[in-house]
């Protein structure tokens, strides 16, 4: 989904060490995740703190990751892989749709966003000023839009109210509405389970205006 990561700053060539490498990288990823979940903003996250949290000397951190951005890219890859699986089964449905089925699919998507809210929040934060993260996140969103637009195309959705729109523009609207709601509403501490369910209903209401008539 996102472009292949650049080769590591330092490549660990010995294949026998790959398991150890994977283990250390997973430890750093887990440490970053824990810190973001604790409410540390990505901007405030430092490599020193990250290495300390993972229980590694800084030099070893730099042996595996070029910088904190590369850790964030790694976290994004994991979330993208999870969302991709759901998105594919989501759109594998054939029309006609029922609202209940749509609610279930939207619910699965928002649940992933909630589970990884701190990571996706950090990525959206970094995307505002970091071009590499911005491209990675953009590619992920564009892929979701493409899958949705394809589904609308196959379903021959008929524009009812506003001639001049396209399947792509409709898909773009649906995906960005979903992204923003999950981050700005779903990602907030004061959004309890009831409010989160209400948010999922609202996104389903929006999707349902498009998919109902197919």
């Amino acid at each position, binding site marked *: 989904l996102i472009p292949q990561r650049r080769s590591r700053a330092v490549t660990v060539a010995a294949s026998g060490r790959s398991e150890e490498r994977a283990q250390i990288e997973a430890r750093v990823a887990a440490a970053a995740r824990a810190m973001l979940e604790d409410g540390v903003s990505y901007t405030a996250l430092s490599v020193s703190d990250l290495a300390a949290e993972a229980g590694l000397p800084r030099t070893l951190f730099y042996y595996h990751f070029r910088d904190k951005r590369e850790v964030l890219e790694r976290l994004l890859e994991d979330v993208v892989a999870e969302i991709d699986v759901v998105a594919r089964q989501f759109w594998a449905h054939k029309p006609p749709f029922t609202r209940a089925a749509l609610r279930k699919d939207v619910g699965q998507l928002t649940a992933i966003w909630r589970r990884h809210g701190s990571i996706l929040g950090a990525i959206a934060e970094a995307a505002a000023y970091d071009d590499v993260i911005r491209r990675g996140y953009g590619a992920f969103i564009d892929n979701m839009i493409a899958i949705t637009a394809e589904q609308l195309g196959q379903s021959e959705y008929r524009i*009812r109210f506003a001639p001049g729109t396209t399947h792509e523009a409709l898909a773009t609207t649906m995906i960005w509405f979903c992204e923003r709601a999950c981050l700005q509403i779903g990602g907030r501490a004061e959004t309890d389970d009831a409010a989160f369910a209400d*948010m999922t209903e609202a996104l389903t209401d*929006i999707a349902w205006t498009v998919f109902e008539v197919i």
Partner: protein
Amino acid sequence: MPERILAASQGLLEEGTSFTELSIGRICQATGISRPTFYAHFRDKRAVLERLAEDVIAAIEAIVTGFWQHPAIAVEDQRAALRAIATVWCSHAAVMRAIAELAAYDPEAERTYRAFIGRLAAMTTDRFAAFQRPDGELKSSPEMLGWVIAWGLERMCNEVGAGLAPDDPRFEAMISAMTEIGWGLVSKLALP
């Protein structure tokens, strides 16, 4: 002088400088003034950005208020209002994106920005509540729908519209898509 500082800062943002990269030094250089002169007018670069954003936010809110007070609306009115909002927003996208960028990590800016989105959400909620019938089909609350639409509109303008020229057909397609969905919601409320 403040006007010149504001214009130069806006120019830098429009050239693609992110708010993080924007420095007092660059602003002074672009304005052709010294640092003490800058500080005589503004506390820091954030004060400059807040001033720039105030006008855009006021203009957007004026459009929304005017439209929402209109008693009888048709689909074409909704499309015209969305077009007016997106045109103002996207033509000042550099400033609006910088405010959104700052809000991602600065708690004070976050409160201000969220308050603005909250006012858009509240106006949208009022509008939906006016249409809502007990036998309407929507399952979410008008409050939540207002928030979801306000944040969605924010992202469509800052992410999608910001990169498009006003005469790009994709700009009109974006307005139409939001109208299609918005009117779809209204029709579900009013016509169960």
